C-alpha cells in the first residue's frame, strides 16, 4: 500500500473517533451526574427528595419539590406570555409581512436569541422588578414568578418563532392556492389550512421552547428571588401567585454548588438528575412529533 493510501485509512479512523466523541460526552454526562447523586438518593431517599417541599441543607432537609414547582410555574408563565407572541410573529413573518419588513423583523428575532441571559437578567432587575414592586400586595418584593416569566418569555420567543416559521413555510404552496381558489380569504387559508398542516412542527417548536425555559439558569437566579419555598398566592387573590418568590431547579444547582460539600453536594447533583430527566423527556417528545410528521408526509 502506498503512503497516501495508508494516510487515507488513518484519517478515516481519526474522523471516526471524533464522531464517537459526542456519544462519549452524552454517556459521560449521564454517568458523572448520576454517580455523584447516588449518595443523596440512598441516604436521603428517593421519595423524601422528590415529594418533600423543605430544602434546608443546614438541618439536613433536602426536598426538591418546591424547586420542581418553581421550574414548572415559571415555564408555564413564560409559555402563557411567549407562545402567542412567538406564533403571531411566525405567522407574520411567513405569511403576512412584505419582504422589506421581513428583512427587519427576522434579524431582530435572531438578535434576541443571541443576547446573553445575564443581560436579560440585568434588564429584569433594573426595569421589571421595580415596576412589579409597585403592585400593592403585602410581601411583594418585585422579585418572583412574574418578573421571571416575562424575562423567560422573551428568551424563548426566538426559539419558538423560528421553528414555527420554518414549519409554516414548509407547507406546500398547493395548499394555499387550493384554498384561495375555493374562495377562502387569506386569513381563512392561514387558520384552516396552513396552521393545521404545519401543526406538528409548530407544536415541536413550542416543546423545544419549554426545554429552553426549563434549562435557563442565570437570568432566573437574577429575577426570581431564589427563596426555596413552594410558590403560593400572597393574598386571597389567586393571581398574586405570580408575585410569589420561587427557585428553579437550575438556580438551586448554580447558587449552592460552589460551597456545597458531602451529602449537600450530592443532593445538588440529584437536582441535576431530575432536571436532566425532565429535559430528555421534553426534547424526545419534540423529536418524536417531528419524526412522526415526516412519516405521514412520506406516506402521502
Amino acid at each position, binding site marked *: 500500500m502506498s503512503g497516501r493510501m495508508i494516510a487515507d485509512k488513518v484519517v478515516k479512523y481519526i474522523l471516526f473517533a471524533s464522531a464517537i466523541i459526542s456519544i462519549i460526552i452524552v454517556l459521560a454526562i449521564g454517568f458523572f451526574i448520576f454517580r455523584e447523586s447516588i449518595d443523596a438518593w440512598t441516604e436521603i431517599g428517593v421519595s423524601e427528595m422528590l415529594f418533600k417541599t423543605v430544602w434546608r441543607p443546614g438541618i439536613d432537609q433536602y426536598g426538591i419539590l418546591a424547586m420542581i414547582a418553581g421550574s414548572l410555574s415559571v415555564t408555564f408563565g413564560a409559555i402563557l406570555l411567549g407562545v402567542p407572541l412567538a406564533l403571531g410573529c411566525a405567522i407574520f413573518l411567513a405569511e403576512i409581512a412584505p419582504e422589506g419588513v421581513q428583512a427587519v423583523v427576522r434579524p431582530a428575532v435572531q438578535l434576541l436569541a443571541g443576547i446573553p441571559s445575564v443581560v436579560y437578567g440585568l434588564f429584569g432587575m433594573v426595569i421589571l422588578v421595580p415596576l412589579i414592586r409597585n403592585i400593592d400586595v403585602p410581601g411583594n418584593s418585585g422579585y418572583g414568578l412574574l418578573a421571571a416569566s416575562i424575562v423567560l418569555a422573551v428568551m424563548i420567543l426566538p426559539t419558538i418563532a423560528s421553528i414555527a416559521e420554518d414549519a409554516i413555510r414548509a407547507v406546500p404552496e398547493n395548499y394555499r392556492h387550493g384554498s384561495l381558489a375555493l374562495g377562502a380569504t387569506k386569513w381563512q387559508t392561514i387558520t384552516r389550512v396552513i396552521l393545521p398542516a404545519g401543526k406538528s412542527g409548530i407544536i415541536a417548536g413550542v416543546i423545544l421552547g419549554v426545554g429552553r425555559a426549563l434549562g435557563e439558569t442565570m437570568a432566573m437566579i437574577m429575577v426570581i428571588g431564589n427563596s426555596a419555598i413552594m410558590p403560593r398566592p400572597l393574598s386571597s387573590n389567586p393571581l398574586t401567585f405570580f408575585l410569589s418568590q420561587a427557585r428553579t431547579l437550575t438556580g438551586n444547582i448554580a447558587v449552592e454548588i460552589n460551597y456545597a460539600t458531602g451529602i449537600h453536594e450530592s443532593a445538588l*447533583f440529584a437536582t441535576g438528575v431530575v432536571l436532566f430527566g425532565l429535559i430528555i423527556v421534553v426534547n424526545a417528545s419534540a423529536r418524536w412529533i417531528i419524526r412522526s410528521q415526516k412519516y405521514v408526509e412520506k406516506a402521502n
Partner: protein
Amino acid sequence: MDERSSEIALIHKAQALNLKKEHRRQSFWVALMWLFGLITVSILILVVGYVLLKGGTAINWEFLTTPPKGGLSGEGGISTTIGTTFYLVGLTLLIATPLGVGAAMFLIEYAGEQSLGSKFLRSMISIANFAVETLAGIPSIIYGLFGYALFVSTLKFGFSLLSAALAGACLVLPTIIRTTEEALLAVPDDYRRGSLALGATKWQTLYRVVLPASTPGIITGIILSVGRVISETAIFYVTLGGSYRMPTSVMDSGRTLALHLYYLAMDTRAFDKAMGTGAVLVVMIILINLLIDFVSRKLTAGVRRVR
C-alpha cells in the same frame, strides 16, 4: 318566477354580507399579526437600546483599560475580563473546532460508504447523530455540573480556564457539527467525483476539494460558537472560579465579561458598572451577528457563482 328571483337575490345578499364579515375578521387578525411583529421588534429595541444608552455612559477608555479592583463597591474597569473572555473563547474553540469538523466530516462523507457495510459502524453513526441532537438540547447548567464533577473535581484541574474550556467545548460541539454538516452537504457531488476520478484518495479529495469549498459554512459555525461562549454564564459560574485577575496560564481561575456582569449585579449591586459591561457584551453580540450575516451572504454568492 318572481318568488324565485327574489330568493336568489336574498342569497346573493347574504353571501355578500358573509364575505364582508370574513373580510372584516381578516383585517382584524392581520392587524393583530402586524402588532405582534411590531412588539417583537420593540422588545429588542427596548432591551438593546436601554442597555446601550444606560451602559454607554459608564463606558470610557479608563473603564475598558483598567482591571476590576474587586471589593464590594464594584470599583475599577473591565480590562482583565475582556482579556479572559478572549482567552477562554480561543481555548474552547481550539478544543471544539477540530473535533466538531472531524465528526461532521465522518457523519456526512463516510456514512454512505460501501466499505462501511458492517452493522456496528452503521449503528454507531445513527447513535452519534442521536447523541449530537441530545447534546444540543442539554441545558448549560448541566454541562456546568458535568464539568465541575469531571474536570474540576475528578481530574483535579480545579476552577480553571482549562476546566471551563473543556465544559464549554461540549456546549458548542453540536453547533459546530451541525453547521459543518450543512456546509458539507451544500458542496456539489460533482466536485467529489471529479477529484476521485483524477486519482485522488478520499482524504485528498476531502482536504483539498471539499473542505475549501465548505469553508464559509464552517466559519459561520465557529463564529456562532464564539457568540455562545461570550454569552454563556452558567457553565463558567461553576467551573471558572471567578477571580478578577488576568489568568497567566490555563490552570488559572478567571472571570469572563458575562460572569463579571453577574457578580456586579448580584454581589456588589453596582448596576451602572454592570450596565456598562452589558453594553460591551451587546455590542460584541451585534458585531458577531453582522459578521455571520456577511459570511453567509458570501456563502450564497459563492454557490451562485459555481452554478
